[in-house]
């Protein structure tokens, strides 16, 4: 039996309310007015309007919060014997079932990219794992491409199911919801939504149309090797990054950047206590690689940009066989000085290596 279900435009509220009733915290894109309109994934409550636009900030905070408490520590002692104290640690173990509604395939693909190092590497990150397990991703097929996104260059597309539990595609009166994973199928089967039936074909048509709207694809297959070759080409990287402000907008908006910092922060109370925090970090910041000695292996923004790009298009692919970029284009859209990762990667692919240069000059 197909798990495809139909969700009428008018039924979205009831559908989500049903999920909330079953214990999900539902995150939806919500429009935030401001000097620049932004769309943010925020917890949804009955009555709140939902936007179906692409979010400004990728939803990775659902699995990797901007900062999270790993554990609390607390020292205890008695007035009578203050020199003697005991230490208790209290790990954070509260993870609630979460449903992400109307993310885009590029957002969902971000989860797949994060899953590899966090779940499949040498160490399985328990915090990430628990959050990821508790997460159900419902993605919305993009109706078309946009000026800055390029998912199809990175091996995906406007309806790629990777990372999603359910893929929803908009048709005339609503959406066809298609179960991708068992988790997604079960959720659909358990729902009161009508079966999609014929409408599934309409959805297939819509997805095809979306793919057809895309600009011509660029071949990035040589990128891992080329980037490795020009790794030491300081001139290339300096030239590419001279406008970079070394802020963290690109990395924090990115669905796939997962670098973090761990710090202890004291909390005041009668006794000594505090928390160990894991918080987002950005490789674009000088402090990212600053060592306790004061030495910094990546003192210049050029080296830091090289790291970011090489990680996405060279070292991650070497380790995991896929780019760590889902082509969402947020870093392009929001870079204050318009640095374009597409341009840098393409330039790298077409750059002459040092050896080639040598040959030519000789």
């Amino acid at each position: 039996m197909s798990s495809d279900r139909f969700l009428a435009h008018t039924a979205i509220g009831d559908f989500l309310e049903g999920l909330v009733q079953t214990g999900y915290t539902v995150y939806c894109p919500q429009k935030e007015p401001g000097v620049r309109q932004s769309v943010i994934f925020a917890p949804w409550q009955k009555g709140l309007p939902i936007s179906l636009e692409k979010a400004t900030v990728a939803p990775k905070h659902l699995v990797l919060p901007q900062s999270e408490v790993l554990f609390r520590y607390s020292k205890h002692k008695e007035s009578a014997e203050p020199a003697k104290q005991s230490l208790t640690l209290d790990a954070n173990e509260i993870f609630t079932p979460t449903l992400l509604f109307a993310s885009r395939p590029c957002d969902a693909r971000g989860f797949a990219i994060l899953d590899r190092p966090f779940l499949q590497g040498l160490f399985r990150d328990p915090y990430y794992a628990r959050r990821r397990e508790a997460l159900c991703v419902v993605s919305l097929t993009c109706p078309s491409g946009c000026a800055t996104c390029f998912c199809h260059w990175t091996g995906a597309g406007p309806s790629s199911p990777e990372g999603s539990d359910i893929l929803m595609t908009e048709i005339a009166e609503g959406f066809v919801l298609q179960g991708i994973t068992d988790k997604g199928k079960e959720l659909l089967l358990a729902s009161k939504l009508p079966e999609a039936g014929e409408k599934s074909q309409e959805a297939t048509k819509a997805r095809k149309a979306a793919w057809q709207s895309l600009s011509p694809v660029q071949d990035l297959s040589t990128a891992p090797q080329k980037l490795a070759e020009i790794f030491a080409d300081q001139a290339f990287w300096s030239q590419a990054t001279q406008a970079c402000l070394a802020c963290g907008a690109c990395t924090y908006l990115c669905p796939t950047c997962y670098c973090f910092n761990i710090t202890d922060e004291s909390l005041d109370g009668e006794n000594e206590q505090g928390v160990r925090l894991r918080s987002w970090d950005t490789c674009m910041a000088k402090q990212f690689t600053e060592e306790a000695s004061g030495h910094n292996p990546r003192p210049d923004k050029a080296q830091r940009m090289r790291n970011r790009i090489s990680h996405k298009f060279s070292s991650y692919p070497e380790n995991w066989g896929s780019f760590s970029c889902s082509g969402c284009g947020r870093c392009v859209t929001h870079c204050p000085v318009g640095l374009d990762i597409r341009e840098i990667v393409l330039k790298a692919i077409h750059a002459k290596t040092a050896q080639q240069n040598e040959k030519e000059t000789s």
Partner: protein
Amino acid sequence: MPALANNELRIVGFLCNWCSYGGADTAGVARASQPTDLRIIRVPCSGRVDPLFVLKALLNGADGVLVSGCHPRDCHYGTGNFYARRRLEVLKRFLPILGIDPARFSYTWVSASEGQRWQKVVSRFTEEIHALGPAPRFEAVEPLAKACSWTQESKGPVSVISPELLEQLKKAIADKLPELDCVLGWQEGRDLLHSVPLFIRSEDDLTKLRCDATCHNNLVRYLPDLKGQKVGIIVRSCEARSVVQLLQEGLISREELVVFALPCQGLLDLPRLEEALGRYQRLEDLTLTETTLRLRVDGQERVFQTADFRQSRCEQCPGELPAIADQSFGDFSGQTASQTLPPELAFLDSLNLQERMGFWRACMERCILCHACRNSCPMCVCRDQCIAESREPHWQSAEASVKEKFFFQIIHALHLAGRCTGCGECQANCPVGLPIFALRAHLNRIVSELFDGYQAGCDPKAVPPLLTYSQEEAHIHERSWE
């Protein structure tokens, strides 16, 4: 430690060691009874009190903060309290824009002999704080997001540089280029609407030069990093003020700089334009006049009135170009001072304190601490040493809470007091559209009120007002407890 008993409130005092702490001692020796709420932190001088300490206390749960130093002219260190007076007055006037009742902060002067006065100060201040009651906690205040909307009042034109003028400029740069390491300008970015910085090092680079209302990046941001190189830069009024400010602060050297100046009537607010355009794939055929912007979007002709998309920063532009240009191009006569409040500030002005705090609370939920605001600011010269991220001094926790984010915004704003040249890059580059320029615009308003209309970056010879003092302040009337 137990929370304060319900009849006491959390009041923090910063007292200078020499006068006010001694005054509090004198009051104690005289057994001058006082309310018990106040806790005193002893500092060497009121000049040591960084306004950020006061905000740290207020954001972290203090219901009131009192700073007391030696009477003006009586500072143990000569001039510390003169600086304190300016900084604390700016702080006091800054608080309301954050949604903090300014009555929760006070500063005064008590000498070591004035035990009675100290008693009066403590009693009065404590009474005042009790009258206000416990302070609302930023993290607990009701977010006010959906109410956040304003309409752009601006009707001014935007800049258009004629092709002839651009050619003149290019020629002048070409002439100078051999003696320069590079010249900073703008070029077309990912599409016709988006301009990005251009580092001109060759004639070839020069052909890419673009100088119109889409060029929003404040290139001055790059100058301190290029210290030691001979650099040319294209400036308009706002960039010129940034140059002046950096010169005042000695962070760039005039000798290493060649300034090419262009007139400007206003710049386009690209985020709002993008919002109006919606999702698109292709932009073609852009024509920009002072009043209209025409372009083809995915094959469809669209026309916009530029006045509807003028940047809010242009609303407070002092107009006149500071006397800094080595070479000027075009007609500057159209540049007039604009005194309109930026719409985001006018909006905040229309809110009450509670709403303002709720407003910022909602904003901070969106802030991702990417620091694009800071890193694009030409005046944020601390660069990698920002105290928002340092572990020593440890001003901020790495926790991404609304409170910590707000404190970062406060650090940024307060560090700009008397220095912000109003280029608006902070806000223009915020990915989530936080109206943080309002904080700077408000501070600029305060500085102008307090220091005879001072505007940062207008006079290369001026000293930033918070880095100097005058013995008698014309516009600061210290609160007394007589």
